[in-house]
């Protein structure tokens, strides 16, 4: 199963990176073939403006991948240092940070996204910020947990006793140990971000037309559900497959990298 997941993930990344090179212009309109069912010329059919659905799917994969990867990176860039600091300075900073993490852990990201969209206007930037923020608590928790665990280890305690600086401990011991759980976390965060981006764009709070996003495509599809049901099938199927791929891969990686989780 993890292999199937890997295949799906690789296929998704390839579609995002190479797909736009082989498909045509996602904005090109064919007025003679609007809402056309799948055919040789348009393998996934066309939308209400006669745009090729396959080209839009391929370009939409790029948006999805960007949202997934950028938001996760953002969360890591901000979250790892916070987690490190909280773990190292337990006395005064840790309780405050962990309290905040606790209360934001299940905070409805959509509320944050709504607020952001209201302030900076709906855009991919807002999507990435909102998604990145929602992933932050998990990243902080993981990093802090590793710091605490690593500091307990005998050889690290010995290094600290030898006068090793915090920087040395962080780069030599803590970060390498964080790698596994953070990779596993990424396989959870990226698909969540893919769905998040599609959701926000579907609602009109994310990526704006005419940029092809799977969520935007589904907004269009909803209006033509009875006339052109294929428009609703493809984007959703792509989201589901990409997400499924990451989930399967994540389940597999967790078994290999994270022996503490009993599943």
């Amino acid at each position, binding site marked *: 199963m993890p292999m199937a997941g890997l295949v799906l993930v690789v296929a998704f990344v390839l579609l995002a990176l190479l797909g736009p090179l082989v498909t045509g212009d996602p904005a090109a309109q064919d007025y003679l073939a609007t809402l056309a069912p799948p055919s040789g010329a348009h393998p996934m059919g066309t939308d209400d403006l006669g745009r090729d659905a396959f080209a839009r799917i391929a370009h939409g994969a790029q948006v999805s991948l960007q949202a997934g990867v950028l938001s996760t990176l953002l969360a890591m860039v901000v979250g790892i240092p916070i987690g490190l600091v909280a773990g190292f300075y337990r006395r005064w900073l840790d309780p405050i940070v962990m309290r905040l993490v606790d209360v934001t852990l299940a905070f409805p990201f959509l*509320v944050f996204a709504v607020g952001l969209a209201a302030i900076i206007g709906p855009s991919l930037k807002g999507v990435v910020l909102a998604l990145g923020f929602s992933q932050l608590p998990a990243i902080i928790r993981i990093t802090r947990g590793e710091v605490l665990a690593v500091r307990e280890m005998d050889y690290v305690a010995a290094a600290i006793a030898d006068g090793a600086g915090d920087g040395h401990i962080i780069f030599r011991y803590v970060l390498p140990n964080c790698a596994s759980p953070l990779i596993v976390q990424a396989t959870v965060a990226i698909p969540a971000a893919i769905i998040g981006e599609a959701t926000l764009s579907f609602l009109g709070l994310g990526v704006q037309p005419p940029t092809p996003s799977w969520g935007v495509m589904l907004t269009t599809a909803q209006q033509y*559900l009875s006339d052109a049901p294929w428009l609703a099938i493809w984007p959703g199927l792509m*989201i589901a497959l990409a997400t499924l791929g990451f989930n399967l891969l994540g389940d597999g990686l967790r078994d290999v990298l994270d022996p503490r989780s009993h599943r």
Partner: protein
Amino acid sequence: MLWFILRRCGSAVLVLFLSSVLIFLGIRALPGDPATVMAGQEASPAAIEAIRKEFGLDKPLPAQYLDYVGQTLTGNFGRSTQDQLPVADILAERLPVTLELSLLAMLVAIVVGVGAGIVAAVRRGKLADYVATGFGLAGLSIPHFWLGLLGILLFAVTWRVLPASGYVPFTEDPAGNLQRMILPALVLGTGFAAILMRQTRSAMLGALSADYVRTARSKGLSEAKVVGAHALRNSLTTVVTVLGLQLGALISGAVVTEQIFVIPGFGKLTVDAVLTRNYPVIQAVVLVTVIGYVVVNLLVDIAYAFLNPRIRLSGGTRD
């Protein structure tokens, strides 16, 4: 126990305070004068001036914040810039709709998710387990707004057995209400059912292999009692924890589901407000969502403490 609840209440108040500050500053971070923002673009200078007075927008920021809190506590959220109705009245009309949807979805998720999780764990490695696990992965991977579109496509467009959208209050037409709510509730509930199923399954697997379950068997208890009382009781804390963690996702999900099925609830209000830059409404819905989130989370924490004698009796934390 009391100490535990007090601490949770304390952190709830902290969240509410921080959120109110964020919302307050957020509105003021918008380009333009807050009074104009609150009154809407087409408002007359007199209306803008009235808002400025009402919310004390000419005072310094801390004083403004206190005024804002005071107004909010008395239920004054201002007026919608779209139709000039008091925001509080709009909320009172929209909230019950979303509450019904969320409760129905929760019901679906708990019945299907916990049930399937128990069956999968008890029948581990058998067909039922594979079916449930497969369903769990699919439910986790399929975005529910797509599931909603597929549901409309199948039940409303192709088979024509359910209405595609719309809403009738339960008090006016109970049958019609449920008929329109069943598909949205199923759609919203499926993803949570999948998450609950996976967590219940793994918690039950752990419980079923625990020594105390063997003890229960050695007493000659029926399998129903061994599984239903001894193993399940210890898995329930997991279920409650997951419910708490998924709360935010449920709120987000309700917004999307209402959009798809054109249900005039709180979520639809939120999206429409953002799209029309109806700031008084945005400010209110965000605050109300946060309050709802904090209150339900507090309830989850208390339920968790009741289920776990360690916390109930010692006042410890759950980490």
